[in-house]
């Protein structure tokens, strides 16, 4: 038995691209063996980016995820499927089967309402980042030409791009009017991140997780395929969320009005009650600054130019400044407030889509977020976050369990009202939130490491012959 050969994770898993425009090509292969041919055709035309530092240079960055249907179509042998079923059941089931129960996607958000791009025949997701949509158009045309050269693949395009900042603000912002790109997960991995960061096994397979365990440690397996296929791979989630910016901004108006009535002295003290409402919903001010607990959470702390990467809540144990139900506070993994020992690390590489419109909003344009997330366990990380920290209050945090995440939760089927603390008064419940976001689709994919992809595409013999029973 030989040790697993060195591998590399896909660069996008380790760091975000510095290019602002994204194109996700969702491919549905329509012929047996077509996926392998198609992926072979990509070589030299659209090479996967393996070198994380290169994300800061180069014209176009590429990442590739394969769905379970995609892996089956290559095909992969039975013992690989057995390992996947045992260790990654969510990946094998697919997002559509899991979403109603695990992600809170019911009603209008349910998979039966998703876009066709996320249908059950989805085999791969090719993600391209470049500076401009024109660059991506050229690259996409080249991929489409490959399709037209005898590779019957149905391609759906999802286009996103940074949308800049509102007048007078800096950095990149997202719809709903918040600064983006403030928190980064730095992995402790030799290929491009920093020692002392998050344990690589939280995102990359085959490495120890934070508590020292390594569920994808397959070095003892007799099968070379098993030993090498998953190393430095990661599970990715592409999730398209439509955002009704007009509804959200109208809600902020209503909530600010409620705040003004409940607390008239604030209207005189504060420049913008709207900003305060937005800050309370998010857990930090729209420009990214943290709450200043000394000011009762009514003023921002620090400078908008250098907002903190991670917010700290030790000085706000009662949730006076930052509500427990706020988006950032509930989702900041590893927060001391939470009940479970396990952190729920999630790497986020997202871009908005649709034209920016800051308040007031043109309600006719479809806009939203193309979320791309990476983790080592879809069940324990992505699904736990969405199902237990977004669709309900995370355990350990005080407050009504029915309070959903105010920014990305689905409020169609109710939930408890969001409350904000006011100095010297009882907490003020804000009006029930309208439906501001809608899930348009979600896909789970495996993003193989360099060695794993090589095995899948080149070593036919291994895929055909390597039929060892996996060890437990």
């Amino acid at each position, binding site marked *: 038995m030989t040790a697993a050969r060195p591998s590399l994770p896909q660069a996008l898993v380790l760091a975000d691209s510095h290019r602002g425009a994204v194109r996700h090509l969702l491919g549905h292969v329509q012929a047996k063996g077509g996926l392998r041919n198609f992926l072979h055709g990509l070589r030299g035309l659209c090479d996967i980016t393996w070198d994380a530092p290169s994300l800061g240079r180069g014209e176009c960055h590429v990442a590739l995820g394969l769905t379970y249907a995609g892996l089956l179509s290559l095909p992969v042998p039975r013992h690989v499927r057995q390992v996947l079923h045992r260790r990654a059941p969510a990946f094998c089931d697919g997002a559509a089967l899991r979403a*109603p129960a695990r992600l809170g996607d019911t009603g209008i958000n349910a998979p039966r309402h998703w876009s066709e791009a996320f249908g059950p025949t989805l085999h791969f997701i090719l993600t391209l980042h470049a500076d401009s949509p024109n660059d991506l158009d050229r690259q996409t045309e080249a991929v489409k030409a490959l399709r037209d050269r005898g590779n019957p693949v149905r391609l759906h395009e999802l286009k996103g791009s940074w949308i800049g900042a509102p007048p007078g603000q800096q950095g990149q912002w997202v719809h709903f009017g918040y600064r983006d790109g403030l928190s980064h997960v730095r992995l402790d991995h030799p290929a491009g991140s920093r020692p002392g960061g998050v344990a690589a096994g939280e995102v990359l397979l085959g490495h120890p997780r934070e508590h020292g365990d390594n569920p994808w440690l397959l070095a003892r397996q007799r099968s070379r395929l098993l030993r090498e296929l998953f190393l430095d791979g990661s599970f990715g989630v592409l999730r398209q969320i439509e955002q009704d910016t007009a509804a959200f901004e109208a809600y902020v108006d209503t909530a600010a009005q409620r705040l003004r009535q409940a607390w008239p002295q604030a209207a005189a003290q504060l420049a913008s009650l709207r900003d305060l409402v937005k800050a309370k919903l998010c857990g930090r001010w729209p420009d990214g600054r943290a709450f200043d607990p000394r000011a009762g959470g009514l003023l921002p702390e620090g400078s908008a130019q250098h907002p903190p990467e991670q917010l700290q809540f030790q000085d706000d144990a009662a949730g006076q400044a930052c509500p427990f139900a706020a988006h950032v506070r509930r989702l900041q993994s590893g927060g001391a407030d939470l009940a479970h020992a396990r952190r729920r690390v999630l790497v986020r590489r997202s871009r908005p889509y649709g034209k920016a419109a800051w308040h007031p909003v043109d309600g006719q344009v479809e806009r939203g977020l193309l979320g791309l997330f990476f983790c080592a366990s879809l069940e324990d990380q992505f699904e736990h976050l969405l199902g237990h920290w977004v669709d309900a209050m995370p355990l350990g945090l005080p407050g009504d369990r029915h309070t959903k995440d105010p920014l990305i939760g689905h409020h169609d089927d109710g939930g408890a009202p969001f409350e904000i603390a006011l100095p010297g008064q009882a907490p003020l419940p804000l009006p029930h939130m309208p439906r501001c976001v809608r899930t348009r689709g979600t896909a789970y994919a495996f993003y193989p490491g360099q060695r794993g992809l090589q095995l899948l595409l080149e070593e036919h013999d291994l895929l055909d012959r390597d039929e060892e029973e996996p060890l437990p």
Partner: protein
Amino acid sequence: MKRRPVQAPDACRALLGSRQQLSEHEFARQVFEYLCDDAGRTALYAALREVGGVLKLQSLATHDEGNARPAAGAELDGTVYLLANRHWVQSAFVDGDRFTNAPYAPLGSGDFLLSLDPQRGDAVLHQAQKDALWNAFHDRAMPLRDIAAWASRAARLSWLGRDEFDLARLAEQAALRFGQAVFGLAGSDMPMLVQKMPSVYRGMTHQMFARHFVAEPAAVQQGRGAMAELVTRCGQLMKDYALDAPDWPQGLERLGDGLPDFTPVLKVLALGGGTLHGMQRAVIVVGALAGMIGNIQAGSCIALRWLLDRERAGMLADARQRARSLGADGDQKAGLWEEFILPALRRHPPAPFLPRRTLQELSGIPAGADCILCVGAATAEAGSDAEAAALMFGLEPGPASTGLHWCLGAELARVMISRIVGDMLRLAGLDEQLDTRDGQPLGLDKRWGYACERFPLRYRRDLRVAQQPLNAAFRVRQPAAEHAQQLRAIIRHGAARIERVLRESRHVHFAWFQFLEDDHVLVLHTVFDGDFSAYLQHFALVVDDLFDALFEHLEGAPPLPVADHPEEFVSTILAHHRPATEDFFFSAYPQTTTPQIVRAGALR
């Protein structure tokens, strides 16, 4: 996978056009498949409308079933006519000179309410039955809303113990309890109702419709047998009510807490009942009860299926919003019926087929022909939901009805269906269960287009009851006495640490160990908040060494050390978990989590 008929009208037209190529029985069988499927039925009606709305089919039934031998001249291989337009259905309801209710007769004695022909010789008896029931329900302001709330709550307690549940069973249970309370059966009668009512309903629906297409000779006989037992029981109850009036009869188990005071139907009939004798009174109770329970179950399932359909996402959101604003105490019927339930039932009536027999030749249909009234075809042609409601339920219920027909259970069904639908819409995360093979909703399974056999739904149980129990039972290794002693020592020495870890976890309410079977089995009991896997994984990470020590003495241990294999630890505990019987779990504070309780205690 269950085969479903092609649902497009074009396919129905093709089927109608291909009749000459099929045997008459095969043609009837294929039409029957369409009739049994909600979407297929709609498509078939659309195709039939283009050819006049009447379809003659070969029938497996004869007019004289139930008799030892056919009467002279009876057809052994008969025919039946589908009447699939509004004109014929309406006409059959009101025209006693041309249509008779006789096909109902095999269900029971000649006294059975449905089999009487009010426009013919049965007018006196029929009117007496209507008067008796009308008095029982409507003269005494029965608190139907409160009874419905009570019945629905009881059913939810039994059927919402897990995330996944079957609405068909829940709605049936709610309907049975509603009927039990309204009519005044005892608490101890529930097992009999649960056992007998499905047979009665199966017999009814077979006689009313399915006998023409499926050979199930025992269905009507078994239905009659079950009905006879229920009639006997209702007769006894009426005697009890009459003897012990005005008090509650001795030895009669009351139904339970939360049910308002009112006079149930059996008691009213026992003390009044007009000119009817005891058997006649009991028969109308059982007949009404059977139809009502089936219709409530079907109506609830149909309405929710309709709202959960992918085409109606906006309507579902509105319905949820309405149900939430009504709250559990609001008038569910006033808030939900007309806007969200009636449109569904109009397209898919709970009783989609009713039987009649012609008394004279009618436009090519001979006298004495069995007919199936396609209620959904008629309601589809109605100009409005209100007109459709009149076709389904009668225009003006009451003794002086001037409607098309008089539906005794309509008001009861409206109240109870609205209650069930409202309570379901208020469940967090309500949605259909998906088929793991294709990701499509498992859907609503009906038998013969009537009875709902299965409608798998799911919801977030953890948002209804925050806590859940874990009872993980492991067999102690042999020699058990020795290992049990070691286990006791580990638990005793680790108690302080276990307590600290549990307290710091902030999601465990209670936890204890218990030896069973003379120290051969060790059970870990806990009551905790939230998700099973996350809860177990937490302890795999924070007290892994304690579990390592315990598993040294237990059979079926996961790979050790636990810290290196947290997923296997979780799956091992789950495999050894013994769920609460019937998923019954009581919590005095179902919405309250550990941190909230601890914080409240600290404040005090």
